[in-house]
């Protein structure tokens, strides 16, 4: 029997790297799930950002609505016409608490369906038991949309003004409905 939930690709960095590009994604599944643990190399205390785009689409076709809790406040918002899923995704910088990585999940539904825009559910977990300037400390949940109907064949992760730290690990799983 074919597997329902199957790993497609994994990248774990042994050195700092600017971007991670998963290409030639098989079109034989129904949904994709991505699990990532990420951190940056900047020396500034706090968190940095990375972006996620499909099929190298860097145009302002992404939008998202989100809610987050930072341990004190609950906030929510919406962004339009941005160049990344969930606008900016956050990860701890190097001078944050040592050995701490952010944890994200991305669920992309019907990624091969060329008749509908691409929807993604994003969870972001950044538990950092330290002082510093954090844009997204705690948890953040986003529903994101790419206003483009193409089937997803590649997924690009890119650090914003910094490289991903060694140890950053990203896995893509395929989920098959039949």
């Amino acid at each position, binding site marked *: 029997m074919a597997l329902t939930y199957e*790993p497609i690709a994994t990248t774990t960095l042994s050195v700092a790297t600017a971007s991670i590009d998963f290409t030639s994604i098989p079109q034989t599944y129904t949904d994709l799930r991505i699990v990532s*643990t990420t951190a940056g190399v900047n020396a500034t205390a706090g968190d940095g950002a990375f972006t996620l785009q499909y099929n190298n689409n860097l145009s302002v076709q992404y939008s998202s609505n989100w809610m987050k809790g*930072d341990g004190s406040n609950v906030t929510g918002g919406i962004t339009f016409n941005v160049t990344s899923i969930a606008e900016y995704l956050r990860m701890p910088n190097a001078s944050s608490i040592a050995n*701490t990585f952010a944890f994200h999940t991305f669920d992309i539904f019907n990624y091969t369906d060329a008749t509908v825009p691409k929807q993604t559910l994003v969870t972001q977990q950044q*538990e950092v038991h330290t002082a510093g300037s954090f844009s997204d400390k705690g948890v953040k949940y986003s529903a994101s949309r790419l206003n483009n109907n193409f089937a997803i064949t590649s997924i690009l992760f890119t650090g914003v003004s910094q490289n991903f730290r060694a140890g950053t690990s990203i*896995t893509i799983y395929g989920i098959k409905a039949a």
Partner: protein
Amino acid sequence: MANTFTLISIAPTFPGSSILFSSIPQTFTDLVLKTSIRSSTSQTNAMQFTMQFNGDATSTYSSTSLKNYNGTVSSASTSGTAMDTGYMASNLFTTNTFSPVEIYIPQYTATNKNKTISFSSGAENVSTTAYDVDAGTAMWRSTAAITSLQIQALTGGTVFGSTWYLYGIKNT
């Protein structure tokens, strides 16, 4: 190809005040704990429970949550000797109502990372009071591989029909 998502262990349905999953195989990438639980304790509010790894009871845990309790939305941050991992229905909640809880532990064998997890739980009550939905993140500030996990603060245990399933997810 071996299964990606594999059942590791099932906890007994009549546990005491804590549940221990020990000797966790080191052959997976991530762990997922999925539960359907209801406390044996009769109290008005949902029951919180906590988790420790590898028997570590030192102050190496912290948690941040986002919740809706009785219509009030809030975010809280805690630190201490265990991580907050959600809430479950008390035995005063609507009959036969169990709480779904999922705790995801990525990269549990990594020895270069502190262990950051996610949790989500729901304690639905057909009532205008005492309902609770809670989600968040927690961290164990240790780079040790996780070999055991213990759910705690289960005052009075859980009722018959409660289930605890620990799964391993393999990325190869």
